[in-house]
């Protein structure tokens, strides 16, 4: 499925803003994303599987906080850095 990558994480994706990753849950997709682009997951997901404070994940344009969220073929995942600071 399609994953949209925010600018601060594109150093991991060879500057690509849109990449592919697969999985039945958000956790699986992020694990697959990290296999393809090593190191990218830990910059947005902490060691307790929490989404870092200033990162936001959206599935089909709905914000999600749980990595257990189920995903289906054709779903779209957007990763954003939150608007914080000036």
């Amino acid at each position, binding site marked *: 499925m399609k994953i949209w990558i925010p600018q*601060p994480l594109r150093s991991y994706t060879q500057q690509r803003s849109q990449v592919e990753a697969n999985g039945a849950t958000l956790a699986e997709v992020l694990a697959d994303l990290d296999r393809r682009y090593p190191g990218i997951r830990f910059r947005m997901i*902490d060691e*307790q599987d929490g989404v870092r404070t200033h990162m936001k994940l959206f599935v089909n344009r709905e914000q999600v906080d749980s990595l257990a969220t189920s995903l289906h073929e054709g779903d779209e995942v957007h990763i954003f850095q939150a608007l914080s600071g000036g």
Partner: protein
Amino acid sequence: MTSPATGPLALLVSTRKGLWLLHGDAARQRFTLDGPHFLGHVIHHAVFDCRDRRTLLVAARTGHLGPTVFRSTDIGRTWKEASRPAAFPKAPAGETGRVVDHGFWLEPAHASEPNCWYMGTSPEGLFRSEDGGDTWSSVTGFNDHPRNAEWTRKEDLGTPDGPILHSIQIDPRDPRHFYIAMSGIGGGVFETRDGGSDWKPLNAGCAINFAPIPDPEFGHDPHCVRLHPLAPDLLYQQNHCGIYRMRRAEGRWVRIGDNMPKDVGDIGFPIELHPRDPRTAWVFPMDGTDVWPRTSPDGKPAVYRTRDEGESWQRQDRGLPSDQAWFTVRRQAMAVDAHEPLGIYFGTTHGEVWGSANEGAEWSCLARHLPLIHAVEAAEFAT
């Protein structure tokens, strides 16, 4: 290093917005900026491996992205990110686990352990790498110590950037003997003699003017602790409550800051030692009066030096602004090189780097207009 260095010198300047290398010429009179590296990253510490004289490690994060470590073995020309940054173990289901906010202090391990490093983090955690900083593991003897919750984990208390573990100081006689310090309510200086499996507080004699107990076992606020490699039983400490020295045979901290001029005081953050003279140290006093402005006292910045283990102090301000200069120098933002005569350097929260190539006798500004400086370290690269 017991004999003076003669090779190329660079200062590693860690800032809130990236890393700069400040390369000195042979006379250490002209310095050239190289950078920014990692523009936009918050760099808390960049450290040179004095064992192989070529490796640099950098503790980084951004305002949005989590913490990581970058490594270079070619003086910063290329960098490689750690494949497993420092992280606390995953907590059991239903429990709240700790999360590393940022790496704060990097320290090469003992000379007999090449490629091994330690890292102190915020909140207070201790981590070890055995592969040159590529992968990091929790030092469970500290992070899971039965008393760890007493000593740490006050996430909302501590320094403005959070509670920190810092001042990892390795005994050159024994890789299993080292010290750490923590700034957070519950902190203090701690010591291990078994490689980090067990720990004991080491705070006797140190003042604590922000707690109702006069001489508690721990809970102090060390700002910076230094062990002298040529005299490992001699410790110096710049604390929230003054400047201290401990001779281990005495077993108590002695407030050598009482010998500072009273109108300057003995509050500050960094303390640096002369690599070839255990009796010589430098501090950068800050205004700790009233509401704790943490600026140069009276707007007149100065370094103070002792040559007798703190029994007396000499003001060193030649070349520094004489008035209306409100420097703040953080605990990692002062460094010495290993040349002869010794060079000493500090970075300010205003983004200036100041240096002296003659042991503090005269100062000049080496760089300005940088972002807020967290740390300055000297790197004596192999030729």
